[in-house]
């Protein structure tokens, strides 16, 4: 059974790979520059999202939906609406996680740890994580509709917890349209953004802690 799974896995991996082409160094540089420019021009993002946790071995999927707001500099509201409410707010140096009636506040300023985690989250959303050579090794590929940046954490423990991060950039606007966290077992969490609005006014109250 295990052998069958391995062969199937290799076969499917190859199929996926064949649809993606490796980019040249020059192309990679150009795309990275466009992502940087887009991130620089983006003051706010408002978007819906669908999160799917795929458990391949079990052939099961857990789907959550929510709304996401981002405002420069370092303000984020990540809100799950279904199947249950769950809210994460990051406002510069502070962070709050709300689960039903439980609220947890974290000061990011007092902890270098959290600043780093915060940088990963902000970098993934804006796409600038593809420039983080200190913490990730990255490969840039091209598919029909996306530029795909595959990021592998250099820290093995982080790699174990988070797995690989794949960022899917929309080819027309160079923004992250989809991101995936893939663990070694083949399970992955995919977050797809939709109804994205850029640079609309978002009041600061949305990020109030």
């Amino acid at each position, binding site marked *: 059974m295990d052998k069958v799974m391995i062969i199937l896995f290799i076969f499917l991996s190859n199929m996926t790979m064949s649809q993606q082409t490796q980019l040249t160094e020059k192309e990679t540089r150009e795309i990275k520059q466009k992502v940087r420019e887009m991130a620089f021009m983006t003051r706010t993002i408002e978007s819906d999202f669908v999160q799917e946790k795929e458990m391949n071995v079990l052939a099961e999927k857990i789907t959550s939906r929510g709304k996401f707001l981002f405002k420069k500099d370092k303000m984020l509201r990540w809100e799950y609406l279904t*199947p249950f409410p769950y809210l994460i707010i990051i406002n510069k140096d502070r962070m709050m996680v709300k689960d039903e009636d439980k609220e947890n506040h974290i000061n990011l300023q007092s902890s*270098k740890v959290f600043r780093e*985690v915060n940088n990963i989250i902000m970098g993934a959303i804006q796409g600038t994580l593809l420039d983080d050579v200190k913490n990730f090794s990255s490969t840039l590929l091209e598919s029909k509709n996306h530029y795909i940046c595959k990021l592998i954490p250099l820290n093995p423990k982080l790699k174990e917890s988070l797995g690989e991060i794949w960022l899917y950039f929309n080819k027309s606007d160079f923004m992250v349209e989809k991101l995936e966290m893939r663990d070694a077992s083949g*399970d992955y969490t995919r977050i797809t953004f939709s109804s994205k609005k850029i640079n609309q006014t978002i009041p600061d109250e949305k990020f109030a802690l």
Partner: protein
Amino acid sequence: MKSLHFSGLVVLILTLGCSTVKDLGVPWESPFTGSFEKALFKTSLDIMENHISGYTLIKKTADSAYHIVFSNEIGMTIYDFELFPESFKVNYLFGPMYKKVMIKIFERDFRQLIYGFIYSRQNFFNKTLIKVKKGKDAWPSEIMLYNPGIKMEMQLQHMTL
């Protein structure tokens, strides 16, 4: 610097919380046996003054074999176990919880929860209390597991899959 990321993730998924449950008596009539196939639960796990929430999927994979996966809201797997009548397989357990004693506790508690039987050697450190809230259908709407020895409390709220 490298270990900072990991510690950050640890603290990121852990938040404070606690509560108590009453012993309603064991063994209990497990809904996981018989024609059970799979179930999804909104889950909160309070363990040694840490709080983790997310979703647990329990699926019967063969006769008397079960797969148990718990992941937090953002999709990170906390644990992935396979339970068999004679063995217990850890596919994944979140780093800081990866301890022999924790694995033993999870095995024993899930064995009791799923198979519905109790161990003959009962003492304070080897006892898990199960509390059940009846739902509209045959399924309990809520199952609470309390292990007083290590102050572990797991709340499973049944969801439609």
